[in-house]
């Protein structure tokens, strides 16, 4: 006897076109004899995609499980609450591994948490943004009301459907947190409340990271034979453009993707865009590529430092900046190092 799950898997496999021909033929012949199956397959075919079909079916599953009473809003509240919890707990763990130099008066850690949870509640549903550091000041204003946060952070009953779509979505968030905390292993153990607050500042107002990106944009192309070859006519024009705008955030309308274009200046601008978007692993790859073509270039260190600051890793950023010590950029690098906690 086919269980519902088996049936579902088979139908979705067929609709995705992933069934081998002979098996599909047998399935089609079965449908000829079985109008129930035929109608159901026809109905599911009307969904936007097999994935959407599976989501809708899971939604029905969970609604049936909860007595068939409650309607659509609930699963999403539970899912959102789950995500907020995960991200919030990831933040707590991450903060615990930080050590900060005392700058301001001690603030209770619990007080700072609701703020960061609020900042996170906005990007959480979108789940596109990378780790915490990418939240910009603007999002604090579009925060969800406090009462809803309280409800989300302490859900009364959480019975998770076996395969919740939100769980699948939550994975990138948790794996990002894991990645962040791995790079912090070896940092000094305990975190005092004051350090936590300074760390908060670093995360929530990425001035230092932003300034580093601006500086990167201003550094002229290293005078090397290779780089001259790489520069095509395209980027020569863009170079004069980028010199008149200090922040490359208003990218030309034609450039809609995050592809890395050939040409030094365009590349630096693309990397900056990736860093601002929080796509740190892509940014790192791009910086490494740039390093191969422009080894020893000052901008490399600055870009690394910028992405590290944006990720909240002050120690790594300082290390990157220190590589500029023997260069004419040393004084400015030292300035930035002093700004970092």
């Amino acid at each position, binding site marked *: 006897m086919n269980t*519902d799950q088996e*049936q579902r898997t088979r139908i979705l496999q067929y609709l995705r076109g992933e069934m081998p*021909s002979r098996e599909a033929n047998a399935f089609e012949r079965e449908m000829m004899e079985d109008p129930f199956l035929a109608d159901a397959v*026809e109905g*599911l075919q*009307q969904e936007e995609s097999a994935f959407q079909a599976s989501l*809708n079916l899971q939604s029905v*599953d969970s609604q*049936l*499980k909860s007595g068939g009473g409650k309607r659509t809003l609930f699963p999403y509240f539970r899912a959102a609450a789950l995500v907020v919890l995960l991200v919030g707990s990831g933040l707590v763990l991450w903060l615990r591994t930080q050590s900060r130099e005392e700058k301001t008066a001690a603030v209770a850690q619990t007080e700072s948490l609701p703020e960061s949870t609020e900042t996170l509640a906005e990007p959480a549903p979108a789940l596109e943004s990378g780790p915490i550091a990418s939240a910009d000041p603007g999002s604090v204003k579009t925060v969800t009301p406090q009462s809803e946060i309280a409800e989300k952070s302490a859900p009364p009953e959480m019975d998770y459907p076996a395969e919740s779509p939100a769980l699948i979505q939550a994975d990138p968030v948790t794996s990002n947190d894991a990645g962040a905390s791995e790079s912090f292993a070896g940092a000094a153990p305990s975190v005092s409340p004051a350090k936590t607050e300074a760390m908060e500042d670093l995360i929530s107002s990425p001035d230092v990271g932003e300034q580093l990106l601006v500086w990167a944009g201003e550094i002229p192309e290293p005078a090397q034979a290779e780089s001259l070859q790489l520069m095509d006519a395209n980027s020569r024009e863009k170079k004069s453009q980028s010199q008149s705008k200090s922040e490359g955030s208003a990218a030309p309308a034609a450039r809609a993707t995050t592809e890395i274009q050939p040409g030094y200046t365009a590349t630096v601008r693309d990397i900056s865009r990736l860093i601002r978007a929080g796509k740190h692993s892509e940014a790192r790859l791009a910086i490494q590529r740039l390093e191969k073509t422009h080894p020893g270039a000052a901008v490399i260190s600055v870009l690394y430092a910028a992405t590290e600051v944006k990720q909240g890793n002050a120690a790594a950023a300082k290390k990157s900046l220190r590589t500029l010590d023997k260069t004419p950029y040393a004084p400015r690098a030292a300035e930035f190092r002093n700004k970092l906690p």
Partner: protein
Amino acid sequence: MNFLGKPDSRWQHLSDEALLEQYRTTRDTHIHAELFCRYTTLVYGVCRKYIEDPEDAKDAVLQIFEKLLQTLLTEKPEKFRPWLYTVTKNHCLMALRKTKTIPLDKLTEPGFMENEDKLNPEETEHLMNRLQQAQLQLPPGQQECIRMFYLEEKSYKEITELTGYTLNEVKSHIQNGKRKLKLMLEKEKGGDYEY
């Protein structure tokens, strides 16, 4: 279903009808849920066929689920599965009648018409035995599709790729071909017409 959403092992091996009997005697709603959930995908699929909005389709599934809590206590279908199909379809058609007219294309597709040509198992076996020879007498389009579908066991998709016919053309060739074959075989038997 238990809290994990998996079929309960106590009832997994019982037939639909046995489970139904259990429900009628015990009135245990868990048993009802267990039975219904064997068909969640199919029921949703059918609802989604007739009801365009996925949210409304989901609602329909829930409504049918709740309606059956009562209905199953009073009605005693011989076979649960086809009965559930009828109930689902009727619910959807009634729901549509309230909002707008029934989309006619749902009722006149090849799939619907095919059921009128359904062969009983005996006829089907007879047909399959004679198919090799019989299909040669079919007009080209039907012959091609019948041969590829029944003898070569190719899927619709593969047939469309190999022949260049559209999916609907393939389906009607097969459907018409089957009807012709049935008539041919009946003529041979001596005119045992079933209309």
